């Protein structure tokens, strides 16, 4: 397969959502193809990288997987600052987590950059018998707020790769056709200090 272009995109991606919704599990499924029934709870945040190759470009994800407990909320800006994409996760078996997800969306709409690509992931889709949030509710909310929506299961891998591929595609589309090596970290380049040496 010949790649028509060698465009490289580096993009910061952040996962937000209530505790125990499966943020880490989604990332581990995508990055390592692993799943554990009991995934260690994340403190602060965990960092992962993964490269995805599309026909048009190669995308290198810098993934920040954040802690879900409400009090960790005050740390979140540090992680979503400069993100090109965000995945807000809720658990279909918990209405509370859906409420939390909507709060995250609001906050991102207010704080994040206007070009932030946002996905709403309704996780644990394998637990159909325990479902509390109807698929239509998630879909409708996403539609009203200009989010992309997918029901996922880190356990069965349903829609997990699709989720990240969709994000990658959107990133490619959003990125201006410039040559290789561009960074899609939302931070403005001009704010960087004009130091020429690394003072090292």
């Amino acid at each position, binding site marked *: 397969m010949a790649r028509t272009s060698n465009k490289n995109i580096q993009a910061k991606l952040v996962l937000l959502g209530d505790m125990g919704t499966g943020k880490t599990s989604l990332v581990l499924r995508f990055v390592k193809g692993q799943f554990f029934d009991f995934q260690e709870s994340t403190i602060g945040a965990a960092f992962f990288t993964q490269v995805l190759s599309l026909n048009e470009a190669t995308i290198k994800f810098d993934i920040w997987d954040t802690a879900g407990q409400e*009090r960790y909320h*005050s*740390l979140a800006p540090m992680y979503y600052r400069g993100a090109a994409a965000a995945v807000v996760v809720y658990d279909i078996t918990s209405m509370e987590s859906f409420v939390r997800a909507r709060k995250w969306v609001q906050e991102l709409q207010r704080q994040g950059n206007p070009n932030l690509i946002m996905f709403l992931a309704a996780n644990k889709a394998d637990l159909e018998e325990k479902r509390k949030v109807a698929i239509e509710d998630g879909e409708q909310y996403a539609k009203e707020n200009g989010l992309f929506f997918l029901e996922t299961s880190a356990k069965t891998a349903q829609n997990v790769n699709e989720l990240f591929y969709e994000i990658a595609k959107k990133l490619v589309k959003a990125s201006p056709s410039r040559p290789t090596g561009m960074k899609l970290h939302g931070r403005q380049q001009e704010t960087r200090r004009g130091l020429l040496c690394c003072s090292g």
Partner: protein
Amino acid sequence: MYSTQSKRDLAIEFQSQIPILRPSIHARRANITVKFQDLYGFTVEGNVDDVNILNEVREKVRQQGRVWWALEASKGANWYLQPQISSISEGIALKSSLKFSAVANAITLKRLIRKGIPPVLRPKVWFSLSGAAKKKSTVPESYYYDLSKAVEGKVTPATKQIDHDLPRTFPGHPWLDTPEGHGALRRVLVGYSFRDSDVGYCQGLNYVAALLLLVMKTEEEAFWMLAVLLENVLVNDCYTNNLSGCHVEQRVFKDLLAQKCPRIAAHLEELEFDVSLVATEWFLCLFSKSLPSETTLRVWDVLFYEGAKVLFHVALAIFKMKEDALLLTHQVGDVINILQATTHHLFDPEELLTVAFDKIGSMTTTTISKQRKKQEPAVMAELDQRLRRLNSLKMEDK
């Protein structure tokens, strides 16, 4: 339900055996990764070099044990438990009436603790020197039992979160990840959530309490260690609703890094790398999620005796040890990978603590307190501003 003592002996078993690890010939030849259990029952992955280091560390632990026994023989069994000793270490002015021997003991003790407390003595030494014993002595003997009994069966947001995290706390550990382990951890965390409702339950405490359970003989002592840690050893509000204490510590840490490791600090700033991205977890879990267990506990040995400033020493040391590599990084991801690889393979506590105390240089508790005071208003203003912004979002929602 309180006879968890027998199960607790499991941890002691880990400590007393201290077997020499022998990687298979295949592993040695191929330099492949081997899996083994460390002193406290955690499964560790490492290469043959790591195993060799761990064996050396175990030998040192044995030697260190002999030093402690010799001191006990010459100074009496509980020489280190004299009250004066710990008060000197807290920087209280020396009274002229204080005997020379007490001062000498204090100096010996500080040096000795930095060299590591033998695992078998850890519960006793920690419990006394941290102030946990004193804390426990101010309440009726049955306090922990009564508390556990009183909160049994109660459901609060904190208990729900604790229940959710029990199987997610060091999953796969041979004792923690059993019904007994979950039960003990639950009672300690739930008990504490009722003791201090401002803290309630904060994620991160599950790892801290779990490790305390493995070290201390009983869950009651683990509970008191958790209490003294949150109420006396660490700064206030590290774990309360918006983690304000943790925010303060992170700002102080940034300043200290700029002071003590200016080249690293400047380079990371250039990369737009905020050290809190990695250090938050270190401070909230007291390194238990990042460092190998024996190394973590060596840090805690000093933490319980010298106080919260130890966390800064150790965090700075981790950066300092990798200065050359860090200065060559071009991306945030590389910085994190270096730091993660470093912490996960820090099987030699000696190496870390030598850098932490000898190379980083001294920092007094008073100076650090001043720096905290300086940062507090900024943190409060930031958190307040955030709260107002979130509230305005809620208003819009209506």
